[in-house]
């Protein structure tokens, strides 16, 4: 039997991978989008695990909404990425450094 804490540890690990990935990654913005997805997946795991062990459906409903929002978010992210490629000709994180003061 898998216990609640196992799920929570798993989601914490995924969450950390996502978060670290965003800050460490210096090469490609698509990787950034993937890391954001990882964070959301970790949250979903949390919600479903809690929902199951509490016997309360609200958490699962929340997950449906997170999935929908995540899809919309990625759509917008990729659109911005396309614009960045058109303007700069590359999608490397390093090119986003023109704004400073």
């Amino acid at each position: 039997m898998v216990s609640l804490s196992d799920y929570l540890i798993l989601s914490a690990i995924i969450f950390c991978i996502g978060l670290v990935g965003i800050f460490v990654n210096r090469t490609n913005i698509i990787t950034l989008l993937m890391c954001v997805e990882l964070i959301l997946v970790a949250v979903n795991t949390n919600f479903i695990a809690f929902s199951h062990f509490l016997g309360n459906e609200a958490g699962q409903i929340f997950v449906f909404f997170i999935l929908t929002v995540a899809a919309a978010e990625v759509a917008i992210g990729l659109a911005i990425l396309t614009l960045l490629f058109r303007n700069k000709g590359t999608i490397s994180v390093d090119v986003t450094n023109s704004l400073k003061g």
Partner: protein
Amino acid sequence: MMNTFQFDTASLLLALPEIFLLSAIVVVLLLDLFLTKRFKQVTYYLTQASLLITGVLSYNLIGHPETVIFSNSFVLDDMASVFKVFMMGFSMVAMVYSRHYLTQHSLFRGEYFILVLLSILGMMVMVSGYSLLTLYLGLEILSLSLYTLIAIARKRSGAIEAALKYFVLGAIASGLLLYGMSMIYGISGSLNISDISAFASDANLGARETLIINFGLVFLVIGIAFKLGAVPFHMWVPDVYQGSPTSVTMFISTVPKIAAVAMLVRILVDGLGAMHAYWADLFMVLAVLSIALGSVVALMQTNIKRMLAYSTISHVGFIMLGFVTGVVSGYGAAVFYVFVYILISLAAFGIIILLNKEGFEADQISDFKGLSKHSPWFALMMLAVMLSMAGVPPFIGFYSKFFILQQVISAGFITLAVVAVVFAVISAYYYLQIIKSMYFEDADKDITISAPMDIQLVLSINAILILVVGIFPDFWMKLALSLF
């Protein structure tokens, strides 16, 4: 618990402003498709009309007893209605300023107005959200519209870069907020704010439960701090402010702050008010860092949008100080500060937009050189705005800082108040620097103000309000206090 699903049609009336705005968005969106270039202005007027009607509908709901509808996920109380009315008013002013900027820089498109309306809808949902789910959805409607709004200047690489940075950091913030929400849900067993509040204020709360709530609380505070732009989660603020088209910067820096504060109140005050001792400590650190960094780093800026970004960060610090106090009058002072900040900020960006010419961005501090000789009236207005931001009486910015500091001192945080005042004095330097450029330096390029009458009129009223509300702050302060 959300297990019981209730729905009755009478409750739809309480969400009438939101329902109306959503329908208006659909109508404007469809109509905009069929408008030829000659009639594009119709979109603008329809936007203003929908904002006005939504504001009136919200105004009519002021005084309605607090009611929770839609299976405990939507609340209608005075705070929600008053916030909505103010949001509509400020947005209308922002739209008047935006139109001039958009026409000057050939960015005038129907989508701009649709996205603004959508983000306002998101803010309204946030303001009325009474479950973690509604709050999150409102936040996402707001954020997703704002990311797109920045990227509307799709040929400017600066704007795209700003959009990308805002997008990535906003997504991290939402992720952190959600993680915190999942922890709170896991321990309290409910998404509803009143259930969470009942759980958190239970006297028999064990050490284990308190620990898990605190664990979630840290993530919630970080998420909210990201959205407000408090140090150390402020990295996106200067870049986004500088890179975005000025009209979008104006919008981002003003109206969404109301929604962020509303979310803060709903989650931390209404929901986890019993945990105040824990989150107030975090807020204290965030507030002091924000005030300090915002005041010091702004000294070195030459770009006025970037300077205003750091000034926003320090204002956010003051707003957070109001929540540190943990008393109703402190929260009232914070809400008053938000309204005042938005009023001043709108005027500041309005004047920047006024100086814009076709294809020319007046976003350097040096662009203000010699403004007093060319148009003394607008220079005087900028003077009022800058003195108000610095907190000089009798302008309103003085009273907003005064009320916050008064509450902070009466709550016993003397050191905090001293630190805040010291940095407020330091920040006066860069506000005065702009005044110096306007009054004591000669223009190095010619200034032409080609703005139409409507923006000049609204801008003048806006600046006069800064003075008038500053002389009679009583009514506004009482209004802000009555919301809690």
